[in-house]
């Protein structure tokens, strides 16, 4: 009995490692991809000096950050100051536990996976607020306040998008949500829930504090927001969490609106069956989510930063009504068809 438990724990730890290691690599190369993509959109070349095509750039960055001095401001609250990066990175890694990569591979097959995700993504904002407060700097505090207000407003719109999805799939289990979308491109939820998908995607950009919603960092106004005074590996943790969150919301978007691990052609057809059976299903998930990750970078290269009051207006006066109306419409459609 106890051996079984032990084996179970070891197996779970193994699964966690299988997720975390590629995730960390993915985050490292996402920073590279970001610099490269934005460079290309600016007609530049981006990093190309370290290694071939600059491919070793993220490793060089990581080494630099690891060896940098850790500075603690004199008036900072030391314990909270040191805790904050951990509080930020913790939930953004924990959230991966409920993500089903294939039909069988998921660390924790929770029945309330969607709620768990919502809880985890909102928890990491505490880290940001604590970081901003514990630094004892006016810029950091402003950044933290902005982050609190922004994340809470967009959480609501995002939650309503989740509601739309779970109304259609009648389940909060992410695996069931994907299975409910069984079929090709047109049986995925992006079609019936198109407005919710758009709202979800824009809120996701706002949730992760990325451009054009990056007033939290707002380098032209408040230096770097909540992490002004952070250096070295602590800064790297914030960075890591931000990029891990980007990947997370992209994967989540694919799971909720783009059929998770399903191939683009229905598995019932000949081609679809071939794609479904002979291509590892995680490939489809990663391909689809990499497109959404790309849009993050694309947005950053394209859009100027929103003004703070416009962000609030968009969140409260546009997104929440839109999502509510569409939930209502979905409800009626479900009731009568």
């Amino acid at each position: 009995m106890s051996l079984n438990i032990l084996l179970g724990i070891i197996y779970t730890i193994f699964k966690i490692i299988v997720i975390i290691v590629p995730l960390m690599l993915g985050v490292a190369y996402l920073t590279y991809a970001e610099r490269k993509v934005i460079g290309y959109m600016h007609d530049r070349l981006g990093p190309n000096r370290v290694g071939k095509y600059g491919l070793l750039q993220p490793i060089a960055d990581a080494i630099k950050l690891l060896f940098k001095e850790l500075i603690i401001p004199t008036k900072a609250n030391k314990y909270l100051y040191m805790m904050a990066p951990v509080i930020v990175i913790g939930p953004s890694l924990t959230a991966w536990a409920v993500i089903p990569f294939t039909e069988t591979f998921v660390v924790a097959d929770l029945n309330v996976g969607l709620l768990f995700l919502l809880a985890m993504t909102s928890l990491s904002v505490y880290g940001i607020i604590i970081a901003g407060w514990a630094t004892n700097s006016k810029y950091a505090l402003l950044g933290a306040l902005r982050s609190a207000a922004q994340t809470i407003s967009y959480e609501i719109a995002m939650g309503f998008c989740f509601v739309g999805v779970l109304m259609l799939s009648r389940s909060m289990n992410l695996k069931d949500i994907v299975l409910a979308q069984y079929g090709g491109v047109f049986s995925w939820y992006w079609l019936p829930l198109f407005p919710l998908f758009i709202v979800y995607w824009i809120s996701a950009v706002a949730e992760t504090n990325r451009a054009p919603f990056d007033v939290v960092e707002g380098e032209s106004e408040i230096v770097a927001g909540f992490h002004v005074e952070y250096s070295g590996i602590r800064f790297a943790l914030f960075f890591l969490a931000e990029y891990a969150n980007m990947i997370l919301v992209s994967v989540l978007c694919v799971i909720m609106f783009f059929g998770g691990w399903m191939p683009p052609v229905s598995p019932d057809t000949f081609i679809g069956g071939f794609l479904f059976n002979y291509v590892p299903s995680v490939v489809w998930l990663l391909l689809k989510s990499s497109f959404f990750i790309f849009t993050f970078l694309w947005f950053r290269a394209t859009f100027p930063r929103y003004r703070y009051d416009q962000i609030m207006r968009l969140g409260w006066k546009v997104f929440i009504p839109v999502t509510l109306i569409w939930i209502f419409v979905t409800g009626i459609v479900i009731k009568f068809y």
Partner: protein
Amino acid sequence: MFIFFKRLLKNFLLLELLQGLRVTWRHFLGRKITILYPEEEIPKSDRFRGLHALMRYENGEERCIGCKLCEIVCPAKAITIETYQRNDGSRRTSKYEIDLFKCIFCGYCEEACPVDSIVQTEIYDYCFYDRNSCVITKDKLLAIGDQYNMDIVKMKKNDSVYR
């Protein structure tokens, strides 16, 4: 009312945002204008006014006759010249220094020189390791002239057509 719905439609279809995304996408695929500096360089004009050099005649004799026209014409007063009488009776410079921090690379010295001794080369990527070496001495100027003789002659010859 119609205008209201038109605006609503325009806002909700995110058309302008998509337009913006299209622009960046075009540039993403477009040609990049970066020049990889140490490997590639921007082409230079034959009239490029870079680092200075002192030239010699083909028999090895210095061209400079110490007339000090360059020193006088120099608007930044970057050139310092001292002369002496050589044993054969000709006037030569004992000191010919250019302070590169003062120099504004206007090219007047080159124009003023009656014997085409002081010239400006195409060299622009030089550096100093201490502040004193910003003053280049006669030896260094002659050395530059000797080292890049062929390049300088070619450059001046190309440009002479237009002078």
